[in-house]
């Protein structure tokens, strides 16, 4: 295994020259001994000690380390959609309204099976349904985002929050500002998902300069957006992250879910590096933000009125 990786790395390192020169147009690929040196300097505000976002990692892979964000409105609806007033525009006005968007679904339409399309439409009607119970029926409710549940994959990648990629040879860690959700992408030891989860189980590999991530092991509660698009627990997502330059990459996800769709289908959009010199992932720990909404109906949020008994 190791030997194969070494061979691949050598090949990739050799290709690095062409890639760095042709695509980056800067920071000519360093010889192996000098790869640790910072590449082209970042904007002046970045302190010299900060590792530069060089084109390549020490093992010759595209360097995806950094803070990234999609700039689109797919979190409202991954299909094309017009601007709409929000569900509570009586108090939320323009704050709570939905921006329009061209969608990220290739071909425009999600190939739902008829019964699944019905469920998607029901989901939309019930998108703000919150009905907390202490049994699995708590998941027969509205959008997971509303209740501060983990977003799953691919949704985490196009929520309107930044996310950070930490990369080393064996594993890639992705941390999402929304809820501080995280996933580990195993580059070294692939295995079947040992257990179902919200974020799925990610096995990754490099195909040239594309990071390909095979994601399975979903728990079946994932919503793809606020419009009620959804995946089941048989979903299989194959992501492709392809750098197009130092500061942006194309994201694609092939989605296969025989319980829900008639055929595999694809989403794609660019993600951009956040270039602010002081950018950092901050906490969006939304649990305290949803407790009133979730637990008031059960009489658990505030102390109940004792005199009413």
């Amino acid at each position, binding site marked *: 295994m190791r030997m194969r990786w070494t061979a691949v790395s050598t090949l990739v390192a050799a290709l690095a020259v062409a890639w760095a020169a042709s695509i980056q147009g800067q920071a000519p690929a360093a010889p192996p001994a000098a790869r640790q040196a910072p590449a082209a300097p970042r904007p002046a505000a970045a302190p010299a000690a900060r590792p530069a976002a060089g084109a390549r990692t020490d093992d010759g892979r595209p360097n995806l380390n950094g803070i990234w964000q999609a700039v689109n409105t797919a979190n409202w609806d991954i299909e094309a959609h017009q601007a709409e007033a929000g569900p509570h525009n009586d108090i939320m006005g323009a704050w709570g309204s939905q921006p329009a968007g061209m969608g990220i679904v290739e071909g425009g339409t999600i190939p739902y099976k008829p019964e699944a399309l019905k469920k998607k439409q029901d989901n939309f009607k019930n998108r703000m349904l919150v009905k907390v119970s202490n049994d699995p029926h708590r998941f027969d409710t509205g959008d997971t985002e509303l209740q501060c549940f983990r977003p799953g994959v691919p949704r985490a990648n196009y929520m309107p929050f930044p996310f950070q990629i*930490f990369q080393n040879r064996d594993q890639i860690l992705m941390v999402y500002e929304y809820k501080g959700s995280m996933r580990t992408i195993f580059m070294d030891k692939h*295995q079947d998902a040992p257990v179902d989860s919200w974020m799925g189980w990610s096995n990754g590999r490099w195909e040239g300069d594309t990071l390909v991530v095979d994601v399975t092991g979903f728990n079946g509660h994932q919503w793809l957006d606020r419009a009620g698009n959804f995946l089941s627990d048989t979903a299989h997502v194959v992501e492709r992250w392809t750098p197009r330059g130092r500061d942006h990459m194309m994201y694609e996800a092939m989605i296969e879910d025989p319980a829900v769709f008639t055929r595999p289908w694809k989403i794609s959009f660019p993600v951009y590096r956040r270039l602010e010199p002081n950018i950092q992932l901050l906490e969006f720990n939304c649990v305290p933000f949803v407790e009133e909404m979730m*637990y008031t109906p059960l009489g658990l949020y505030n102390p109940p009125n004792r005199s009413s008994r």
Partner: protein
Amino acid sequence: MRMRTRILWVTTALTGATVVVALSMAVLVAQAPAGGKKALPQTATSTDAAIKASEDAFKKSLELKNYTVPKKPWGEPDLSGVWLTATYTRLQRPEELGDKEFFTEAEAIAEYKKAAESDAEVDPRTVHYDWKEYAMDAWQGGATPNLRTSLIVDPKNGRLPPLTPEAQQRRAAAAAAAKQQDPMLGIRTFGNLYTRCVLGLGALPLVRGGMPGADSAAAAAGVTAEAFFFQSPGYVTIVMQSNNDVRIIPTDNRAHAPSQVRQWLGDSRGHWEGNTLVVETTNFNDPKPAAHFLGSTDSLSIVERFTRVGPNTMRYQYTVTDPRTWTRPWSVDATMPRIDPSMIYEFACHEQNYGLINVVTGTQIRFREGTRDLRGNGAPE
């Protein structure tokens, strides 16, 4: 590998009564071992075997001198892996030990053995779950003996420094409010950040000290006490198994976030001093009605020092400063053993926090019972 269980452990002092009710609830979780056909190692089920293994690891770690820490390809010392934060060593030195800072090797092993055996015991009167069954006792997970008699090394007596007058008042006011307002009656006034799934156990500081003999594994040493250190150029990122709390630590010593940006886990900044990662954390939020570590406030700051002193041993020192809580800073010197596998699992706590409903509902019922009892008018509902 281990089964993991979300533990909700609540101690509630009921109004007007000295009754203490401990509700232990385990909700879900179920992390089946990968390829789960393998039998559990003997250390997971046999106290004797586990104690022997811990002793061996302990002795091995004592033998290691002048360990040369491996470097990451980009030149930084390699701290990566999963480090266990569970320990039976108390935060504060038992008063009967006076100024005795260290055990002998034999005493340390005897202390560990005593703590592990007591942890492994099950009191049928109090047990709701036998933690052993989930392989969650610390002796099953790799906790090791310790020469130190307490985690605290400064002050010299191994004890927390005196509280400030403000902190004493805060504590008294909280106790009085607890009597008047029945603060455990609603989630909002509940105050237990762990049960609410706001925070996991022990993300900062990582090693907090055990209470050997306590009837909860969480209190005895620590549960889901794995800290996953992920290293990439310019960052050390710590992902806790408990609640998957994430701390992103840039190691370029950049300036802290503006003081208006307050966070549950503060704002961490790191730099390397030789082979030691030094991390300063400030900008803690005001978590009322809960509090930060040991009742501290948003004035808290913590400086941590991580030094890998052996292939499987991380020295972990930290200094706690909160001028609104303690009359002087205090410091800890601990170690964390490295354990396999080098990964953590998803810990979706809030998503399936069935326990919170049960705990708060149960507490409400107990409260009503308690009230009725106090008025002497009837049996529990």
